[in-house]
């Protein structure tokens, strides 16, 4: 009897592996093998034939364009992610308790995700061009026309665009997280006389911790996709405040600097991995409490 149970378990495990094979194969072929190749290329010349040691890493770290791109990307991430998390959580909390409102707000908030990047870029141009809507509106108040995408304002245009685009998705994720919190807890707190702020501070936020981790990671990864908009509107060389790491990689590929590109990619991926591991540990630690 015992033997047959063990055999049954072994077969279940085997079946699990069979189900996992397609996804593991897909991830392996399309992600892990290319990544390993990138890792290898970080230590070779472009042709991949000559071992160059740490030369590529030295080149990258000493490269002024890399430092600028990295600083911009870091600044963008540091500003955008907390802002996005805060704003989306606020909206989620606001509409979660109002089902009639959320019925029409959810599709509205998700709409930016459905808009193709090319259309977004067109919209940007209409708004932020020297002779666009924004300058037209400002001229009513006596302001002269500004070339928004070629000034420091370009950075904030990019921040607003990122938040506009990802807000709805994050609100939905927060709502999903909120729905896992037992209503008994909040109702009991209310009966005990807790204010709404205290309920958020002591009940909602601690229970949202698992969601915070996932939403932060997704927000972080999505922040890298904002390059598409920046590239389509300003090309390879936008204003230096929105010159992102992807611009640099894109230009390095054009210039056939694969060694540098691979080294840059390894550096960025290591930073991301460290960041994600730290977040996970933080989450686990908070969860233990």
């Amino acid at each position: 009897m015992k033997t047959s149970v063990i055999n049954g378990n072994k077969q279940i495990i085997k079946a699990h592996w069979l189900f996992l094979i397609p996804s593991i194969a897909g991830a392996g072929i399309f992600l892990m093998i290319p990544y390993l190749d990138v890792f290898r290329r970080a230590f070779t010349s472009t042709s991949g034939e000559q071992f160059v040691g740490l030369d590529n890493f030295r080149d990258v770290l000493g490269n002024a364009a890399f430092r600028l791109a990295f600083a911009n990307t870091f600044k963008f991430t540091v500003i955008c992610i907390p802002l996005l998390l805060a704003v989306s959580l606020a909206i989620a909390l606001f509409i979660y308790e109002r089902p009639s409102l959320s019925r029409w707000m959810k599709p509205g908030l998700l709409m930016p995700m459905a808009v193709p990047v090319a259309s977004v870029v067109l919209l940007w141009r209409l708004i932020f061009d020297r002779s666009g809507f924004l300058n037209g509106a400002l001229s009513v108040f006596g302001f002269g026309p500004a070339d928004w995408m070629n000034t420091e304002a370009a950075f904030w245009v990019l921040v607003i665009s990122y938040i506009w685009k990802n807000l709805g998705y994050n609100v939905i994720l927060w709502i999903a997280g909120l729905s896992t919190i037992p209503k008994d807890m909040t109702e009991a707190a209310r009966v005990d006389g807790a204010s709404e702020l205290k309920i958020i501070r002591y009940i909602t936020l601690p229970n949202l911790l698992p969601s915070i981790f996932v939403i932060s990671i997704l927000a972080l990864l999505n922040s890298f996709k904002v390059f598409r908009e920046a590239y389509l509107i300003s090309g390879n060389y936008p204003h230096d405040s929105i010159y992102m790491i992807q611009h640099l990689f894109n230009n390095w590929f054009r210039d056939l600097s694969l060694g540098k590109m691979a080294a840059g990619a390894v550096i960025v991926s290591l930073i991301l991995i460290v960041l994600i591991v730290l977040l996970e540990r933080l989450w686990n630690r908070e969860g233990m409490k």
Partner: protein
Amino acid sequence: MKRRMLVLLLIMAMIFTAMTLGGCSEETGTDEIFESHYIESKIASPKECNNIIDFKLTEVGSLMAIGTTGDDYHPDLCLWESTDEGGSWELLEVLSDRINIKKEDFELVEFSGQFNPDGTIFMYYGCMKKREQVAWSFEGRSPYDERGYYSIDKDGIITELDTNIPQSSDPSIEVYSFFCTHYTDNYKYFEDGVSQLFYIDEVNNKSVPFGKPTQLNIYAFEGDTAYYVGDKDCDIMNPNEKDDVDKLKQLTGAYNKNEEDDGYNGLDVYENDNERQYYLVNKNGLWRTSDEGLKKLVDGGHSHIGGDLSGRKVIVKDENTIYLDLNGELYKYTYSEEPLIVETTLSAYIPFGGEKAEIVSKLINEYQMTNPKIQIDLEVGTNDENALAADVIKKFNTKMLAGEGPDIVFFDGMDPKKYADEGLLADISEELRIDEDEYIGGESAGLRDNGSVYAFPSSCSFFAISSNEKDVKQQENLNSFADSLEKNDIAGDWFPYTVGILYREYFDGICMEDGNVTEEELRDFYESIGRVADTFEHGYISSGVSEMSPTSMNFFTDLGSEAGGRISLDYITNFTSLQQMYIDREKGIYNIDFFGIDGRRLYVPGTVIGVNKESKNLQEAKDFISYVFSEEGQVTISKLGMIPVSLDAFPTGMATVEGDIIVSSGSYYETRTFYSDEVSETVEMMRSMSIPVGSDAELMELVMVGAEKYLDNRNDLDKAVSDTMEKIKIYLAE
């Protein structure tokens, strides 16, 4: 249940694997190798003939030719016959003697003639008196002061033709001029001044438009039925027989499918015992349509058919013997049981389409003509003028890095250094004979490293200044040019390309000589082009100048009589343009010099070639390089309208510019052969060219976008300079 699940999973895994591998697999492009059974041979023309105008095959199998002899200004029109396929030609008659004109009364006399299918000979002449002013607008006038049209029948009786043609049946079309195509008693087809072909409906006395008004010519008659082939769609048209048209369209549907055509096509109808066949020729080859369908007989890319021609005529003797008149050169195509098979196929790549790609394609054609067992497939990165250079280059990089790069690369608009630095290019120093031959630019030419050469320009262009002696001497940079222009206030047209010329000459050539750009240099450049632009009262310039047209462009302004005439900055890309400058100088109009600084002159390396180190046909690819840099290849480059880089090839290359009279829009101009002292002078000046003007398309785009904003008053000078400088700094730092 478990087993079923297992099977399902296995099937899914297999599908996934197949899709993955399928997606990764190379598209091998199994192009059908063309086997030609027709062998090309050239038929000699009459020795004294300058220019064959038409030829025909007589019923007894001899060849007859109409052409001109004598000096270019007052030629004779002659008729010859050869019974031994060009071995010897007998002059039958000087046809122009039949017409009673006083040639000496005119500055220029032109004759032309053609064989009509009914056995008559059509002949016309046009005479021009000396012109004081060049008329650039045609406006429906004939360029000739006197002209006449004649028909000589089989018995040799000459008749002047009635040129009072009736108006068109379509009231919206005004028939105001008359260029005869076939006009005899039997065939009354003519062309008006805007290339609209008509035939005369004698019953209603009306001119009837024949087909579409573009590139029309009658190429074949069958009885009284005329066919033409040669419009953009390559349709064969017979206006009288609709069914026939439909059938032929069906037959020839594949003839031009997806194939670009230059419109200079030929057609002949041949009937054997069983069927009627149509033989067509276009730049892609010689084709036969019959009841069996369409068949390619000779490939344009491996014969003289695909050359740079403005006329192709086909005459079929029988199914085994076909004659072609290609721009006045006669070729015979004879059937052979042994097919000619391509043994090696090479791939070549050029990033951007346009005139340069066309010239490269013709150069490849020329090579294939003498190497029929080699085929070179030229891939053009993009023909889209709006495509981003960076996108095209990235696509090419992907191919190179995936090991699927072409055998031969033409680096126009791409920097070969990056590819050489990464070890992707083969050493071609032996093919160039770099130690033996002399090239423009000397040590500065090509991409060299420790005695190896990885890429080398096959052509070049340069800038020339023409003006009075004083102004020519003053031209040292863009500022001095702007100074000269500011001496007058006569407005002219501002060409979008002009800023491109100035960029190349000044920015790429002078600022970038040390590989760096300073803010002062950029400011100086913007200021100077601003001054030049103001002189021309420009309204708009375009930033789309990353690729310059290889044709000669210039801009000039009249400095007024006090200043001594015109000043012109020309971008010289071929010997004909250069010669026009020498002719102007000979006439005492202008002095000329090549543009430079501190005694050194600038040149623009063109059509830079390299060979992929990983090429599977490395030796064959290098053989092509040897051809390009051989005297033969370099002279071919001259003929194709570019300036070669091998100084050894200059005398022969310059000799390809022949004396000719070009009638154009109401006037004419001459070309002549270069004088020997002009050849020596040119070679000497070429030797002093030591500043290569780079072709960094990305940098050019950055600078030009800034220039555009400044010149269109969207940014002031400070803002334009600072914005552009920021981008340049990032670009150079990368």
